[in-house]
């Protein structure tokens, strides 16, 4: 255990924020996280971020760092940033790392474009077939999983229902009205087999983290959240090149690294955040991270084991499906892990000692995993 999160915050508001540009969202979250840690920007010597260049974020905040990391591999970039920050601190390259996220995913203020070059492999071998963003790419594996394992439409819909039940408890969640499986399956078809309520939200917002060495963590005002283990991996840039449409190799590699380093078992995890870009994403995570066997996630979700009152509390902020999803949601998954471990969550669980935050980047393209604890002796 070498590093700890000692500052964590989201932007004041999440949702539709046309009055804030993407980099403003980075900066506001950063200032809130620094205040949470009780330090100033002058204490920061490392800047890590995705979406915007760390050069631009450091400049905007007035920081001249000794360490920068612009790993930008989609929504799991922030899990990877925490991992890289811990390694850099351990190597003596920096002492106080600031990790920022801000995205005007809904209002598109100060955001770059989505387009792929026509000479890219995606431009040559996927774009010509009428793909239209993640809803038509990330989702292509689902029918294969259903075909091989008998996963049902109702089982996938139950992911959205369970997640909404957590959102009902969270005043900051964008979507809080209760929904049923029938509601999900009768919502508008986006890309069969995916309905509207099985797709994440599209919002504006940001979040930031402050990471220091585990030894220094006790000197900060908030209860430290220690990094017990971490992992990262990547697999493909085009979904059509995914090795096995029923299993993410990147998830498996990342998860195995994190558990090996943490030295704990799956049963030792008290709380989980699995990036939910679509309803199937946490199903794939549950399997690839080894919490259930291959193909067994459908019944697990259908039994509402991840919902309030279940034995596997998952996505307790309401997830990307109901809380917020700016485009690179992973930062918000980490924020909820931190809140649960500090005892600050809106839907606070009793006795949380360990939490796993697992992110995906692109369309099952990359992965990052953090296993966190509030137990200094772990």
């Amino acid at each position, binding site marked *: 255990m070498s590093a700890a999160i000692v500052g964590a915050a989201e932007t004041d508001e999440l949702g539709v924020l046309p009055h804030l540009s993407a980099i403003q969202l980075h900066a506001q979250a950063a200032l809130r996280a620094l205040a949470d840690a009780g330090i100033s920007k002058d204490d920061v010597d490392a800047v890590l971020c995705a979406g915007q260049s760390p050069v631009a974020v450091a400049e905007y905040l007035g920081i001249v760092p000794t360490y920068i990391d612009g790993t930008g591999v989609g929504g799991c970039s922030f899990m990877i940033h925490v991992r890289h920050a811990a390694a850099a601190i351990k190597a003596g390259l920096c002492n106080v790392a600031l990790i920022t996220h801000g995205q005007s995913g809904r209002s598109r203020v100060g955001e770059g474009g989505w387009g792929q070059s*026509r*000479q890219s*492999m995606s*431009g*040559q*071998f*996927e*774009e*010509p*077939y*009428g*793909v*239209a963003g993640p*809803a*038509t790419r990330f*989702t*292509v*594996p*689902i*029918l*294969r999983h*259903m*075909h091989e394992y008998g996963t049902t439409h109702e089982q996938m819909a139950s992911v959205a229902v369970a997640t909404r039940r957590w959102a009902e408890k969270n005043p900051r969640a964008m979507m809080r009205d209760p929904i049923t499986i029938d509601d999900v399956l009768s919502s*508008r*078809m*986006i*890309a*069969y*087999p*995916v309905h509207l309520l099985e797709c994440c939200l599209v919002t504006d917002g940001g979040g930031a983290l402050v990471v220091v060495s585990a030894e220094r963590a006790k000197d900060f005002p908030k209860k430290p959240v220690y990094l017990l283990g971490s992992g990262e991996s990547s697999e493909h840039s*085009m*979904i*059509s*090149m995914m090795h096995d*449409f029923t299993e993410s190799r990147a998830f498996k590699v990342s998860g195995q690294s994190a558990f090996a380093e943490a030295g704990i078992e799956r049963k030792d995890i008290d709380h989980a955040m699995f990036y939910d870009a679509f309803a199937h994403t946490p199903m794939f995570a549950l399997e690839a991270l080894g919490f259930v066997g291959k193909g067994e996630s459908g019944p697990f979700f259908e039994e509402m084991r991840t919902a309030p009152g279940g034995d596997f509390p998952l996505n307790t902020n309401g997830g990307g499906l109901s809380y917020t999803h700016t485009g690179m949601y992973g930062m918000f998954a980490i924020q909820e892990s931190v809140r649960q471990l500090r005892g600050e969550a809106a839907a606070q669980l009793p006795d949380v000692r360990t939490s796993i935050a697992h992110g995906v980047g692109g369309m099952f393209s990359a992965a990052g995993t953090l296993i966190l604890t509030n137990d200094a002796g772990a």
Partner: protein
Amino acid sequence: MPKRPLPESTPETQEFWAGARRGELRIQRCKPCGNAYFFPRPFCPRCSSDDVEWFTASGRGRLYSYVINHRPPPNFKDYAPYVIAVVELEEGPRMMTNIVGVEPAPENLPVDLPVEVTWEQQDDIITLPLFRPSGRSS
């Protein structure tokens, strides 16, 4: 026919697009390890050998997985719903495509359905490989 965003070939993909103009599905195979692969690269992604050759695939395969898109980009507006599929060629590699020649409904598109290539010319340079259920005339 939708106005598709057309590819621009790069040095390693020129043979694929030249083959497509002739109605040949050109993919690559590694001579030392026998691995057939796609997308085009000048070396084998399995063993890194650059002793690779182009060959013409049979054009037959099966429907590995798909979505039926109901929310098209502007250029495809008049063609929705349509099938965005990944086909597994009988030589092994997979590629994204559209399934044509069949009503885009789940009951017509069981996973593993046998499919075969059919070509859709876009302009003088680009012809795209689409797939249709096997054994049906175009």
